[in-house]
């Protein structure tokens, strides 16, 4: 089981890292999501794995075994925080897209000699998903 979990963390991380290195913000959002999955599982696994040992006290159980509750609490906090962050990220992505007219992650210009006025003629694509070929 540990090997499965560890390899899952590895795959999530690798794919997440690959995606955050792409040039479009949405890929980065996907990457960040994968990374936060990875990190949540990683953090969770620091309490070591156990089955059938949920940390919910049961006075009827004989010799109850409970898994480490602390990492779970930490992961909960981490999940919530990364949710907030993702939400902000999504909004920033929209903001940058609406302002700049593209969703490239790299900046247009870092040290502009002249701060050009915003490029005109940005067409927003707010349509529904394009229909696939109708058969």
């Amino acid at each position, binding site marked *: 089981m540990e090997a499965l979990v560890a390899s899952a963390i590895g795959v999530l991380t690798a794919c997440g890292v690959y995606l955050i290195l792409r040039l479009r913000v949405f890929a980065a959002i996907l990457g960040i999501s994968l990374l936060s999955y990875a990190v949540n599982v990683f953090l969770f696994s620091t309490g070591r794995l156990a089955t059938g040992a*949920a940390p919910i006290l049961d006075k009827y159980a004989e010799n109850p075994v409970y898994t480490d509750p602390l990492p779970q609490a930490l992961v909960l906090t981490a999940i919530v925080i990364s949710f907030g962050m993702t939400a902000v990220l999504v909004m920033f992505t929209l903001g940058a897209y609406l302002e700049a007219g593209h969703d490239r992650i790299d900046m247009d210009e870092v040290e502009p000699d002249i701060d050009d006025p915003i490029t005109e003629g940005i067409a927003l694509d*707010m*349509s*529904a*998903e394009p229909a*696939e070929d109708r058969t």
Partner: protein
Amino acid sequence: MIAYAVTFAMACFGIGLVFSLWRLLRGPTRADRILSLDTMVINFIAILVLYGVANGTKVYFEASMLIAMVGFVSTVAFCRFLLRGDIIE
């Protein structure tokens, strides 16, 4: 006997997961992918319930219920996205 039944049913739903996965990867339409996700949700709920039976515990009930609820919401949202583009309008 129940243990065998549970194992059998788990295997069934596990294979069901594999089938759904195949549909997820294969597509070909986006509706198919949504459908496969929806099927996975149901398979997983079944597996959770079976797991509860296997362990004689009800700790997993809330999870099953919530998964059923959010599975619905995601499916609808995905569909609405494809249908209208804007899921809340």
